[in-house]
């Protein structure tokens, strides 16, 4: 079975859907979202480390994570509040990037069991406006560029 992440972003709307099927029981899929040490692992990459500063896994609990570059400078921070929290079923949370002009967005995460060993995650993200959604869609690309630049810089530093 093909397991691929799908993005549905209809034109002229201020929301989008991210869907993905996993070769994992729903319990493990859920754990990956609420246990800080696991979350840090899959949110980190070669050019940045993600640290969970706060993750109060309950309704009205807060969360905060930071991503640092290889020199240890914090390059990205995001925070929010859990509004709804039902283990192995759903998480409703706000998401806001610190120190950016982007306003808060609302995220509905639905976890569902497909079989004993497979599960599905649906993330429904709601943005303040159509323009903001479209801007956000283009963002990972520019972020990727920045990171590529940082990496380049790092390589160049080593050459010095």
């Amino acid at each position, binding site marked *: 079975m093909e*397991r*691929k*992440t*799908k*993005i549905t*972003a209809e*034109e*002229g709307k201020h929301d989008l859907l*991210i869907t*993905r099927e*996993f*070769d*994992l*029981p729903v319990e*493990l*899929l859920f*754990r*990956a979202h609420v246990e800080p040490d*696991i979350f840090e*692992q*899959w*949110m980190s*990459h070669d050019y940045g480390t993600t640290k969970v500063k706060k993750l109060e896994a309950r309704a009205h609990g807060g969360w905060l994570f930071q991503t640092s570059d290889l020199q240890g400078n914090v390059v990205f921070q995001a925070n929010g509040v859990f509004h709804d929290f039902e283990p192995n079923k759903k998480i409703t949370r706000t998401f806001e990037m610190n120190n950016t002009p982007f306003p808060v967005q609302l995220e509905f995460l639905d976890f569902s069991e497909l079989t004993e060993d497979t599960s599905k*995650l649906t993330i429904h993200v709601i943005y303040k406006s*159509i323009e903001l959604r*479209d801007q*956000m*869609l*283009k*963002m*990972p*690309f520019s972020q*990727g560029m920045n990171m590529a630049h940082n990496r380049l810089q790092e390589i160049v530093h080593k050459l010095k």
Partner: protein
Amino acid sequence: MNLRRDVFQAIADPTRRAILLLVASQSMTAGAIASNFDTARPTVSKHLQILTECELLGQEQQGREMYYHLNPQKMKEIADFIEPFRKMWDDRFNKLESIMKKYKTKK
């Protein structure tokens, strides 16, 4: 106000999307395109100008007439614009899956 003309802004307008659909099958003159809309001719011309500036439409002179055609390369860029975002999530989720598989075997 200086509007930034990018392709995404260009396709945000329903009339411009309809124009793109029209010329997708065959190249057409401005007059032939305008005859498909109730909108005033200068309005259609304005739309054509925006689409041409964004390179979604190409122009070709045939005799005395100017024909508009779709630029498939630029259209492809639009289809692809969501791809980096999708790829970012796909990479994350692939990682999540492989990490959690280890927990599965520990059980």
